[in-house]
């Protein structure tokens, strides 16, 4: 899959009158052998793309739910290399874009070029690196461009306008709009100015804007979805999958459907 297909998948979804829905899952939570089954299940219930989290020893951008899922995966020996290999083993069955979310250090140890090539060969088309801000992207840019992998940037509520312009100008795939000041996790409320923030982002960005961090209920999917081109749901999906509660996963995905009046 190519990086353009991430953007296209979201746009196609919006044209159908739906909001994009991207679930975050922790690779190897429950064992790496569950990964294929989980990805095919999510694909079947109509997700737009899948954000595949790589467990890390020091996940500073993550809240307790994803931290614990990461610890469970690490305890089972799951590594970045193992995840890339595993995804490669069933890539022909995967029809939705797969986006890896990994902290920077495992990529550095993997070797940036080798990692980018292996991703391409595994059908992985996008990458989110939460501890790689705009200032430092030169470290990975060439390798990712050569392998046709989208580097999906994060924009936060604290990012000032001139920064947002620079980040979105370089944005590929979609813009990941962080909806709270803080780490991933379940939350009750959002900042009042979120709608305005997301609309400003959409106005300057040439790729779709997806909102994430703290979105955990069907109501929040609908509400935040109404301000953006789609949503990313992490902790709530991780919890539901861990509990084997597939109904909740389906409900969350369905909350993103038919939210744009079709003409």
């Amino acid at each position: 899959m190519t990086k353009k297909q991430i953007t296209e998948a979201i746009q196609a979804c919006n044209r159908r009158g739906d909001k994009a829905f991207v679930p975050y899952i922790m690779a190897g939570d429950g064992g790496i052998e569950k990964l294929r089954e989980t990805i095919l299940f999510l694909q079947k219930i109509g997700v737009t793309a899948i954000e595949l989290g790589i467990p890390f020893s020091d996940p500073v951008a993550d809240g307790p739910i994803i931290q614990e899922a990461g610890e469970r995966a690490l305890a089972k020996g799951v590594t970045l290399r193992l995840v890339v290999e595993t995804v490669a083993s069933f890539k022909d069955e995967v029809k939705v874009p797969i986006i890896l979310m990994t902290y920077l250090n495992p990529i550095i140890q993997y070797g940036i070029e080798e990692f980018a090539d292996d991703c391409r060969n595994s059908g992985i088309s996008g990458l989110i690196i939460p501890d790689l801000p705009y200032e430092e992207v030169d470290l990975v840019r060439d390798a990712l461009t050569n392998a046709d992998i989208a580097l999906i940037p994060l924009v936060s509520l604290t990012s000032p306008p001139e920064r947002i312009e620079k980040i979105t100008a370089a944005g590929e795939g979609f813009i990941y709009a962080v909806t709270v000041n803080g780490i991933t996790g379940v939350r009750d409320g959002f900042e009042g100015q979120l709608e305005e923030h997301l609309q400003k982002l959409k106005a300057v960005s040439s790729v779709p804007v997806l909102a994430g961090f703290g979105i955990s209920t069907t109501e929040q999917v609908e509400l935040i979805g109404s301000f953006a081109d789609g949503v990313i749901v992490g902790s709530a999906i991780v919890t539901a999958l861990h509990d084997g509660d597939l109904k909740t996963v389906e409900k969350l995905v369905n909350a993103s459907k038919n939210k744009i009046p079709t003409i």
Partner: protein
Amino acid sequence: MVKEQTRSGRYGKFGGQYVPETLMTALIELEKAYDLAIENPEFLAEVAYYLKDFVGRETPLYFAERLTKHAGGAKIYLKREDLNHTGAHKINNTVGQALLAVRMGKKKIVAETGAGQHGVATATVCALFGLECTIFMGKEDIRRQELNVFRMELLGATVKSVDKGAGTLKDAVNEALRYWVTNVEDTHYILGSALGPHPFPEIVRDFQRVIGDETKAQILEKEGRLPDAVVACVGGGSNSIGMFYPFVEDENVKLFGVEAAGSGIATGLHSAAVAGGKEGVLHGAYMYVLQDEDGLIQEAHSISAGLDYPAIGPEHCHLHESGRAAYTSITDEGALEALQLLSQTEGIIPALESSHAVQYAVELAADMSKEEIIVVCLSGRGDKDVETVKAALGGDKS
């Protein structure tokens, strides 16, 4: 030129700003505020005032005559950072950063602590300047440094226990970073070591360089010349960078950083990032990091909580790579030996962290002539470690 440093906070290839986007605005704001403050005579006078009248600087440079005799070689001087208010060098930095936070209009402070010295120093300045203080400390460190926890609470700080990972300094930094990301608008993070994303390594170094600046003036006064060697312990590397920095361009002064070898480098149970680490990114900076082949960060091990960190600050990495400073290591056992030795020859109980530097200096002195001079940064006093030492020695005072 060894001191090269670009404005983006690079020390050779080390350093940088590898943090979540939510923190970038705060780091840029901090950098701007810091650059203005550090050029502002009023701010510098304010820092100097508190260092003198509150902290008790300058600290003595003391000739350790009996220790020198024992080592049987070069003259050993001790830079007495243990005599600072709160018992260690950590307060040099917290005074500076708290005054910076006040200038920036931040009313809340968050910090991490390992041994508790930085936590106590932070809680102290928060009390002094009326700032709300939250300290993250690993569960294991809380156990090892119970009294320091009480001290922080007595000073009005909230101490939060971190039970992730091994429950030591690395995990406390993770939690402090998460807290900062969530409360970034009204909170300043007082990082305690020469680590983290730019501009922290630079800020910490600049507030700690008073150690080296004073040492230089004092040794010139006492000996009429610069020392032949300067020795300091290195965890993240704040006392050592503060001691080294003013000497970096004096090429005849050898610089020795002493890492914690824990149970021995070969055992894998150590905190020596230069000796046993690889290049990588942790807590916002490109440094030498203890990690496995998959890039997962490994736990550090040392009897001294303050050196128990799996990386070494970016400027030290550059000093190592350029060859300007040499990094060596001392085991837990060596540190315990030095702690007893200094206690019994000089009547000074050093912190376990500083004991690593003392031990190396004693070894180094033996190979040097009597005309040569070594300065050791005695970064902290050992009161906080007495229980740990007692347990390690099995109650036997050797």
